[in-house]
């Protein structure tokens, strides 16, 4: 077992053995899925509001769930940094890349598993309430949302590296609110227009849900799928590079 795998395994266990992870990363998104499904039944069809229809809601909740993985990434990293655990690790042959990949990989696996469970629940709900979601669309959407998960995890890694155990979760909460409102999780951003839509389009979160929803519909048009996905991939890659560089620089500063 190499150093990075060992550290990733430790992080996976630390997260999965914390009961709060299940409450925030699984129970809460699933509860929101049910609540919003109930809300959807109360919305008159004439209103034309489809954001809470299960095929759209599933993706919104999946992205919402990923933001909580970001929160736990921030918490884990900031907690490790504030205690002496990382001090001990710094005195071993571990290098900066071992740490960043060791945080990223288990979080990505957890985010993927979380999305699988949310999509399974959504599929069951769609069979009950309709319209029935195409399972193939859900599978494609699962893969489509991987760059989005990387993006959120890297934001968590960045905040956890830069801020304290108290500040990092607070900042992650701001991103959770921003991404859910301006990412079109709780309303259809395309139906807003004006400044609101412009703000949504400036931030990367809107493109996460847009690409994911297009994938569910097996709509691979350039405007609705390819470009949003490309934007998310580029943002995820940029954030991964920034988070790695910041962690390396902080580690260097810690060891100076």
């Amino acid at each position, binding site marked *: 077992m190499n150093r990075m795998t*060992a*550290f990733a395994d430790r992080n996976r266990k630390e997260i999965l053995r914390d009961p709060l992870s299940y409450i925030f990363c699984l129970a809460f998104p699933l509860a929101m899925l049910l609540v919003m499904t109930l809300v959807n039944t109360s919305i008159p069809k004439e209103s034309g509001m489809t954001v809470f229809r299960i095929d759209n809601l599933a993706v919104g909740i999946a992205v919402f769930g990923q933001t909580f993985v970001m929160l736990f990434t921030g918490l884990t990293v900031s907690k490790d940094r504030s205690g002496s*655990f990382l001090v001990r*690790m710094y005195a071993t042959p571990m290098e900066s890349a071992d740490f960043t990949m060791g945080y990223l990989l288990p979080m990505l696996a957890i985010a993927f598993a979380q999305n699988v469970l949310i999509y399974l629940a959504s599929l069951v709900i769609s069979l009950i309430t309709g319209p029935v979601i195409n399972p193939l669309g859900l599978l494609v959407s699962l893969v489509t949302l991987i760059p989005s998960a990387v993006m959120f995890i890297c934001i968590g890694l960045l905040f956890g590296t830069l801020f304290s155990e108290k500040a990092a979760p607070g900042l992650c909460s701001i991103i959770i609110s921003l991404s859910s409102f301006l990412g079109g999780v709780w309303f259809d951003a395309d139906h807003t227009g004006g400044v609101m839509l412009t703000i949504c389009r400036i931030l990367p979160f809107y493109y996460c849900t847009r690409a994911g929803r297009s994938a569910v519909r097996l709509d691979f048009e350039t405007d609705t799928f390819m470009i949003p996905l490309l934007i998310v991939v580029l943002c995820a890659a940029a954030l991964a590079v920034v988070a790695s560089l910041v962690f390396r620089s902080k580690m260097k500063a810690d060891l100076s």
Partner: protein
Amino acid sequence: MSMIETKDLTRRYGEKTAVDRLSLTVEEGELFALLGVNGAGKTTTIRMLSCLSKPSSGEAFVDGYSCTAESKAVKQVIGLSPQDTAVADHLTVRENLEFMAAVYGYTKDEVKQKTDRIMEEFHLGEVENQRAQTLSGGWKRKLSIAMALISEPKVLFLDEPTLGLDVLARRELWREIEKLKGKMTIVLTTHYMEEAEHLSDRIAIMVSGRIVAAGTLQEILAKGSADNLEDAFVAIAETNGDDGTGGNV
């Protein structure tokens, strides 16, 4: 053979000098105690020797490797048990040990073999499957030291290993440390006189970042013109300018 050697090792934080022109030599297999009040510079010295801090000036060598230029090589031969226990809270005792062994790149079989050995040596069997967060202070310290030893280091740094432990847990840990004597070089920091007295081959008294006396217990007693270490320590510290406020850090 010298296992640790420092030459005018100095660490400054802005205007303050935490470690001031420290020159010391620790022989292979020796248990060397750095004794001093809080803020005397003991932990900063350990940090520089374990490549966690860079010296402002001077040099430090561990097993012949430079702590600044060859930190990777130094990290392969040292084990560190920090002042705080620094264990993974949600991992069991066995998992913590296996994790540390894996970090040093051992194969799966080696990881198991080394974990079994260290668990037996430290009598950790009864808490093997207990999560670290549920352990008492004494068990946590034992685990922390066991984690530092899993890679079979040539040099072990123990930073205040019994800080905050009750007398029984402290004595138990002393017995474990005594068993290690002669098998590796150990540098231990402490502000407990009886700990330094009981465990060390040689003692260095640190005051305001400087070593003001070093030698065997008998040599320290002679230097302080006292018949116990506490009196000798107070005499030496006061002669060398410690006003009891915790040094210059």
